């Protein structure tokens, strides 16, 4: 006998309806959660942008690490952690709400102050500037009282029409000083004498580059790698890493370096190398032919008191750097052993060149040059305050260029690049 059960059928239908409704509720809940997450994500993004605006406003961000409630409503929290990275600054900005957070790391610097950034600042050491050959200097120049004149070297006189294409002002007998705080942070070499140099590893995470690649985030403690070999070759190294070598360090063209800092007694970038880094040395830095150091890169040289030879930075033909090049000597040295920045014919530097000593400009500088003296080395002789076939053109530097706080920095901080 087949039983007809209306109650059973009703319960079955109810069960099916309940199932449908449950799935609808779950679906709706899922979409609602997703929507809330999306809204929260947008809010965190806005708060992150607001935090970036605060960070760029130096007067409000005095501490190295700050946690802020942006609008005093206890729902818009941001954490800003800033530190120096070579001659630039790095900040880690995090906006968070409960277990959700959004983090960005940024390199930032300062747009050069126009009045403090001439095309050429040549200290007044009572000698005129002499220009020969196809030399072009464009932009405001600070020159010695003795002025600028035409010269004649190796059969070539000055070939242009105007000596300085821009305003000329009288310089002082010393250069505008580099920012001492940044110099102290950058000069990590704590112990140096004629035999060896060393760094303090306190506060760093010690690492090694035994693997093919090493990527270390700027959110973590800086990694210090003490190199056992003086060659960096066939490695990919990126991020918050300082590579130290006590002797002569050679960087091969197959090395890929991104945002790292190199520290050694001397550094040589082999022909064809391309990367984005900061390199600081005591003895010399040589950028060989066709090397490309992309923005933001920085090369710095520190003359130590025990050193009697002339420390130098040399750019060979076809090499290129966009960023900052500087030399630093602890006290006023006026002899021939003061530091030298040499930019050979065919080499280009875009940015700021600060030689606390001599500058030998035979290539192109699109930006500013500061130096105690110009030096011209020819096969036959050495001339002081002479420039031959060199180009210094301040107008070629982009108005959006962001440099370091080391020299001629404007008030406003600007983003150089986003890292992670």
């Amino acid at each position, binding site marked *: 006998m087949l039983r007809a059960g209306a109650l059973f059928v009703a319960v079955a239908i109810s069960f099916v309806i309940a199932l449908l409704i449950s799935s609808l509720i779950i679906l709706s809940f899922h979409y609602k959660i997703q929507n809330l997450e999306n809204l929260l994500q947008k809010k965190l993004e806005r708060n992150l942008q607001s935090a970036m605006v605060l960070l760029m406003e130096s007067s409000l961000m005095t501490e190295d690490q700050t946690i802020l409630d942006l609008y005093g409503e206890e729902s*818009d929290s941001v954490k800003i952690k800033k530190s120096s990275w070579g001659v630039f600054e790095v900040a880690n900005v995090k906006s968070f709400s409960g277990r959700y957070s959004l983090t960005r790391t940024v390199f930032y610097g300062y747009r050069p102050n126009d009045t403090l950034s001439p095309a050429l600042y040549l200290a007044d050491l009572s000698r005129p500037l002499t220009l020969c050959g196809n030399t072009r200097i464009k932009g405001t120049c600070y020159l010695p009282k003795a002025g600028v004149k035409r010269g004649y070297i190796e059969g070539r006189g000055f070939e242009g029409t105007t000596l300085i294409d821009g305003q000329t002002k009288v310089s002082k007998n010393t250069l505008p000083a580099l920012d001492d705080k940044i110099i102290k942070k950058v000069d990590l070499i704590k112990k140096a004498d004629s035999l060896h140099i060393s760094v303090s590893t306190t506060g760093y995470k010690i690492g090694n580059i035994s693997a093919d690649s090493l990527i270390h985030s700027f959110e973590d403690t800086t990694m210090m790698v003490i190199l056992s070999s003086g060659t960096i070759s066939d490695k990919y190294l990126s991020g918050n890493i300082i590579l130290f070598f006590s002797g002569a360090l050679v960087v091969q063209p197959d090395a890929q370096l991104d945002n790292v800092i190199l520290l050694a007694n001397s550094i040589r970038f082999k022909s064809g190398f391309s990367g984005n880094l900061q390199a600081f040395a005591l003895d010399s830095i040589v950028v060989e032919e066709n090397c490309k150091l992309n923005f933001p890169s920085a090369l710095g040289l520190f003359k130590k008191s025990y050193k009697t030879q002339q420390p130098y930075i040399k750019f060979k033909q076809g090499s290129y750097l966009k960023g900052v090049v500087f030399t630093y000597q602890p006290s006023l040295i006026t002899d021939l052993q003061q530091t030298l920045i040499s930019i050979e014919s065919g080499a280009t530097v875009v940015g700021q060149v600060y030689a606390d000593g001599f500058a030998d400009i035979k290539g192109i500088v699109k930006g500013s040059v500061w130096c105690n003296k110009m030096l011209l080395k020819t096969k036959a002789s050495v001339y002081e305050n002479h420039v031959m076939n060199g180009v210094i053109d301040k107008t070629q530097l982009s108005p959006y260029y962001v440099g370091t706080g080391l020299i001629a920095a404007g008030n406003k901080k600007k983003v150089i690049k986003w890292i992670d």
Partner: protein
Amino acid sequence: MDRLILNSALKASSLFETIVGLMITMLVFAIAMTIYVNVIRSSTNIAEMKALHRLEELSRETILKKSFFDENFEEEGVLITKNVGSYKGGNGLLLLHLQATGPDKRNLAELKKIISEDDNTQN
């Protein structure tokens, strides 16, 4: 044509059983409809999403055009209020506060952002 021949007796449901069955079905259906309506009402509101999107657009426009002043206007029945005030006492920092209110005076969306007076590179 074949015919289906039922060789047994078919027991019909009693009137009581049918009524109870119908009541259960109706009750479950009523509860289901209530839940359905509530779910639909509480799920993502298109008007709120549109309002927030418009506020984000306005925030970008304000920064780009440097229109750092208060204003109120109505768009498609939604009242948009823009307030620009100094953030924590000046320093060239401004607090942009945008709010969208629906025709039923309900707050549809709100947006707050710190902006700099002299920088149009932010978005």
